[in-house]
């Protein structure tokens, strides 16, 4: 088969920025079969593939890409699904540039193979044709409880169900998917895809109980009494952080979690056809430089804002957001105010936001994160007129479950302490995802779910709890 020797990735067709900035439809449109095959032919099929090492769930990347190059799309998705139960999601939201694609040898002389785009292609190819219902394995008669139905929980559930366990997922919200449904916007990850991936997990025999706020309605002790032999805690990101500056409770100030939840989970963009409202003004400032900040800013634009700023205290280089999302946001005319830090939010007499006072920053010596520390420039304060402020500076751990679980060791920041297999300080209890790591990525959470599933399987076979 002739190689495609292009140094660049086959471009991804996208919606025109001028059009897409006002709609919630998906931005990236996906490869056609021809585009996928052509891109797949760029892969050198390395004997020792670095890409697989870079993947938290070890997708057999060269093998599935080979199938695409040979037009065996069904074979490709089959290989992916051996290790990844949520490929249509990963193909869209994984930071491939920091994982598989980072290790691609082609990246040394040009652009790496577009592994994420190919994964998405294979998953979508199957999805649009209707996937085969999975083979349901023989039941082992052992019950496992999973708390939270985000990427970590779904992955752990899928892997355990494939091994024959009776898995129940307890979800606090009314819809399964966790951050995939409340956090990541439609234009980046259509909800229909999440629904289909969740359905696949259910077809494996996993039961999902919604409206279950664990720690409140049931405790972990209750679960053991109910006959569950292992529990995996994947409750996710938790409480939004605020900056602790004056004015954060003015009307029109949202946490990114609230802003995105109202739009994504509660479908506030359809108000008044749906009942949950949201207020998006004409000029919006989003504070923070991560993917959530990008999502919030681009959502604000789609909700009708005239001007959306991202206010970030460091520079472009330190910004944690994926490059692709940054580029997308720029194309959609989001304005980036780098090296700018809010010091207070200003309100009007009715308590509504009317501006933020910011201070300019400059980069000093590297801090604990290894990034150069931003230092305020004295006297550089200025006022930015805005009527909506969205705070996207991260989240802290949610204590609802950990508070009611005895013997569960926490880190000094309140996250659950685990060993390398995801085991907590309590026998029979594992944890993974953002409740362990703090805000991270979908794929890292999936990796943690996978690891925990392996460890749970081992434990339930011999009931040995050694740490």
């Amino acid at each position, binding site marked *: 088969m002739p190689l495609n020797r292009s140094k660049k990735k086959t471009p991804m067709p996208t919606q025109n920025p001028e059009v897409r900035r006002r709609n919630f439809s998906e931005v990236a449109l996906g490869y056609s079969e021809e585009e996928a095959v052509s891109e797949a032919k760029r892969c050198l099929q390395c004997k020792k593939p670095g890409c697989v090492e870079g993947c938290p769930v070890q997708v057999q990347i060269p093998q599935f890409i080979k199938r695409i190059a040979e037009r065996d799309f069904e074979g490709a998705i089959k290989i992916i699904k051996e290790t990844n139960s949520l490929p249509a999601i990963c193909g869209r939201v994984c930071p491939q540039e920091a994982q598989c694609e980072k290790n691609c040898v082609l990246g040394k002389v040009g652009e790496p193979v577009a592994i994420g785009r190919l994964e998405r292609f294979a998953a979508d190819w199957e999805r649009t044709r209707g996937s085969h219902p999975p083979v349901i394995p023989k039941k082992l008669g052992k019950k496992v409880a999973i708390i939270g139905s985000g990427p970590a929980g779904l992955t752990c559930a899928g892997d355990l169900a494939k091994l024959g366990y009776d898995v129940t997922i307890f979800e*606090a*919200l*009314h819809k399964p998917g966790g951050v995939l449904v*409340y956090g990541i916007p439609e234009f980046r990850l259509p909800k229909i895809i999440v629904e289909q991936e969740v359905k696949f997990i259910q077809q494996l025999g996993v039961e999902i109980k*919604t*409206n*279950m*706020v664990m720690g*409140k*309605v*049931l405790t972990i002790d209750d679960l053991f009494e109910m006959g569950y032999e292992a529990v995996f805690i994947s409750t996710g*990101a*938790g*409480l*939004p952080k*605020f900056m602790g500056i004056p004015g*954060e*409770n003015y*009307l029109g100030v*949202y*946490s990114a*979690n*609230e802003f995105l*939840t*109202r739009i994504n989970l*509660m*479908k506030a963009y*359809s*108000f*008044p*056809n*749906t*009942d*949950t*409202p949201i*207020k998006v003004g004409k000029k919006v400032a989003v504070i923070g430089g991560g993917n959530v900040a990008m999502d919030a800013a681009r959502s604000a634009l789609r909700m009708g804002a005239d001007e959306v700023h991202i206010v970030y205290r460091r520079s472009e280089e330190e910004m944690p957001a994926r490059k692709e999302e940054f580029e997308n946001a720029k194309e959609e005319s989001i304005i980036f105010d780098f090296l700018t830090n809010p010091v207070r939010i200003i309100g009007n007499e*009715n*308590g509504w936001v009317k501006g933020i006072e910011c201070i300019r920053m400059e980069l000093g010596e590297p801090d604990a994160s290894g990034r150069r520390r931003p230092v305020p420039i004295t006297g550089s304060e200025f006022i930015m007129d805005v009527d909506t402020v969205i705070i996207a500076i991260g989240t802290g751990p*949610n*204590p*609802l479950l950990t508070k009611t679980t005895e013997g569960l060791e926490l880190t000094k920041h309140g996250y659950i302490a685990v060993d390398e297999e995801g085991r907590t300080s309590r026998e029979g209890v594992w944890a993974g995802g953002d409740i362990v790591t703090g805000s991270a990525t979908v794929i890292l959470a999936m990796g943690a779910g996978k690891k925990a599933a392996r460890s749970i399987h081992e434990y339930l076979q011999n009931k040995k709890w050694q740490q």
Partner: protein
Amino acid sequence: MFKILEKRELAPSIKLFVIEAPLVAKKAKPGQFVILRIKEGGERIPLTIADYDAQNGTVTIVFQEVGKTTRELGTLEAGDYIEDFVGPLGVPVEFPNHKKVLGIGGGLGIAPLYPKLKMLHQQGVEVVSIIGARTAEMLILEEEIKTVSNRMYVCTDDGSKGRHGFVTVVLKELLEQGEKFDEIIIIGPPILMKIGSEITKPYGIPTMVSLNPIMVDGTGMCGGCRVTVDGEIKFACVDGPAFDGHKVDFDELIKRLATYKEEEKISLEIFNKAHGCKLINKIEGADKDAVK
């Protein structure tokens, strides 16, 4: 899906539902609340638990029809189902060594007051209560409060029943007469809780209020329900809803409750048009008593 087992009209536009929710009933404690969503596309609204029965697996909620969602909820009948019913949420209240407590309930606030007084009464604590409403026909749960109180005062704004005036008038009198309480619980519209807390403050009597800010998830995830207590941001859903009334920034709470005023109006108008409602004026009048 959660079944409505019983429906009662307590007052014009105030309704009581007994909901079949065994898991919630089993864990519910006074001071906690639920979040419900009537159907797909609906909003999630918090409602305080007015009573619960672990044995029968039921949870009682009381709500006033003030907005679209509560009006729609009011159209449901016994035998109908609610899509989502989540709880028990929030921190339960505790009164470890109390001997005598004063409970004050205004309007719909009488409903969440009831389980707290009931628990105190069962603990053998002396309970004095003051309940009030705009007018006699809007007064709810009078019998229930009476059975858990050693002494009860009733007030109406228009004098149509009991004392003529606000509940705070009686509160003031009791304190001025030198009556002592280990704690005072005030639940009702924010303005009542604010004024009540201002009255009790000089007497140094611990005063508990129960806040009902706008919420979405009710699990701490969104921070929409944040309130300022003692100068710090608290999330009413996970840190409350009960707080020290002397430390709550009520003015901020009142402002934040009005965030979606325009949208609430639009939503209600559309609903009323679709349901051919002739009671709009009455409902808007009822708004004054509403906690939410």
